[in-house]
């Protein structure tokens, strides 16, 4: 690992200014559980690391009955996983946080870092001059692509690895972004970009912009939610496919409305709008649910080794819906 200057700003404004003045040589650093691997492997070669952890006030969870929850971007995944209100009212967030990595990584990894982590593509993380690193080719397209995307790919075929992003997308969470010109709030759906829009970064964040907080509206009286993650290992792993589901259910017979979000299938946390529309009024029995799932991810383009993800995502979604019934 090359040496670097380690800078400890004490306010988000100072961190933002440092990012602007140092430009591409600077890296925002929160828990560092992902960034450190990339630094060790010389995939990241930044000469200045801007440590965010000395900034106060961004590492707590606040609850409000009318406005919902507000989670600071430096809150660790462990804090989210053990928060009692989240456990009882936002089951999907609790389950997603609990499924992330290992106890050791959850104790250090932060929400902001989890949302902004780099792709888990083995070509990107090894010594390949791929599109995401400014090269001209996606080696996964004709190479080994078991864990790559089945929808939304091209010219790069990564999947976004964040579990929290999938859960927060299903919850229609909002992201408060700090920048030198002020704060702005966007739906989390607008945080992420596809490689066709920008193949060198996963989010819309511009230099000097930092995720400050995440907001989630209070759940309705009939809201039920879950997060299911399929992984190859019984212990910790990234998702082959994951499904986050938020449903409004009345009398366990039909869905009033719902939203499903998917991980492991696309270069960004994914939703299928047509499928979400079908959830409104859907009867909660296996036949209707299976029928609704027929057209899920119809626009997919599977690669040589990842077609298994399509039946997997359908079956996991069916299981999630019927489990919530």
């Amino acid at each position, binding site marked *: 690992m090359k040496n670097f200057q380690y800078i400890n700003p004490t306010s988000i404004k100072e961190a933002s200014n440092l990012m602007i003045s140092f430009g591409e040589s600077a890296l925002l650093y929160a828990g*560092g*559980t992902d960034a*450190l*691997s990339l630094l060790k492997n010389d995939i990241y070669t930044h000469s200045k690391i801007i*440590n965010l952890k000395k900034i106060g006030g961004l590492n707590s969870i606040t609850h409000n009955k009318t406005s919902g929850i507000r989670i600071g971007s430096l809150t660790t995944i462990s804090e989210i996983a053990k928060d009692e209100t989240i456990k009882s009212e936002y089951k999907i967030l609790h389950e997603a946080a609990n499924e992330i990595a290992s*106890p*050791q990584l959850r104790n*250090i990894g932060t929400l902001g870092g989890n949302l902004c982590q780099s792709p888990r593509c083995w070509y990107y993380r090894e010594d390949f001059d791929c599109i995401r690193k400014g090269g001209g080719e996606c080696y996964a397209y004709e190479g080994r692509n078991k864990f790559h995307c089945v929808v939304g790919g091209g010219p790069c075929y990564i999947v976004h690895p964040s579990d929290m992003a999938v859960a927060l997308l299903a919850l229609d969470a909002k992201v408060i972004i700090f920048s030198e010109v002020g704060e702005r709030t966007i739906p989390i759906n607008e945080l992420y970009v596809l490689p066709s829009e920008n193949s060198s970064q996963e989010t819309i964040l511009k230099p000097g912009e930092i995720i400050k907080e995440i907001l989630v509206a209070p759940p309705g009286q009939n809201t039920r939610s879950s997060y299911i993650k399929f992984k190859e290992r019984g*212990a910790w792993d990234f998702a082959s496919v994951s499904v986050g589901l938020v449903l409004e259910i009345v009398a366990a017979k039909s869905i009033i409305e719902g939203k499903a979000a998917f991980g492991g299938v696309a270069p960004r946390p994914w939703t299928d709008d047509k499928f979400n529309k079908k959830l409104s009024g859907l009867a909660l029995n296996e036949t209707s649910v299976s029928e609704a799932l027929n057209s899920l991810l119809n626009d997919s383009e599977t690669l040589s080794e990842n077609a298994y993800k399509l039946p997997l995502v359908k079956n996991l979604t069916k299981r999630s819906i019927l489990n919530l019934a």
Partner: protein
Amino acid sequence: MEDKNKKKGLSRRDFLKRTGTGVAGSYIILSDINEAKSTSSSEKETLKTFSSYAQNISITVNGQDYSFMVEPNTTLAELLRDELKLTGTKVVCNHGECGGCTVLMNTKAVYSCQMLAMDADGKDIITIEGLLKGEELHPLQEAFVEQDGMQCGFCTPGQIMSAYALLLNNPQPNKQEILKGMSGNICRCSAYPNIVKSVEEAARKMNK
């Protein structure tokens, strides 16, 4: 087999001899460390050169306070092993995946290889060496010996530190909670059933 080994110039006897030398070698290194300890820290630091990036950090390790100049690209595991010579903490994958380097930071289990020493500034660290009381083993260490919670033993310090963190937060975990609490530690010999038994036994002893 024997011929092959001879060709390479390595018989079982030679191997044992060399291992023996290795042990003696380690002993000499250890006595070097003891001498180094008696040198004052300021004297030691004059021998070292630092880049302009180096910063001073204060850290408590196993109850003792230290102050170090560290290069930003030093991991906590490197600081513990190379500076403090606390080599019970093992660096195995060096990518925060296997758990061999697990230590406690402010009572929580962390991978010391997957965090910068800088980030331990002002923090309280406990390593496997910190569980000993003089020569007396911690109940967890005893339980791992009694229940044979290991085969080669290389992952054991990390396993014990994860178990220690687990029992601090949950003194009477059920089997499922043990599996989840220990899920960040890989044992390549696959001694998992006995690791679980060791944690269960330690929990019983510690709750008496």
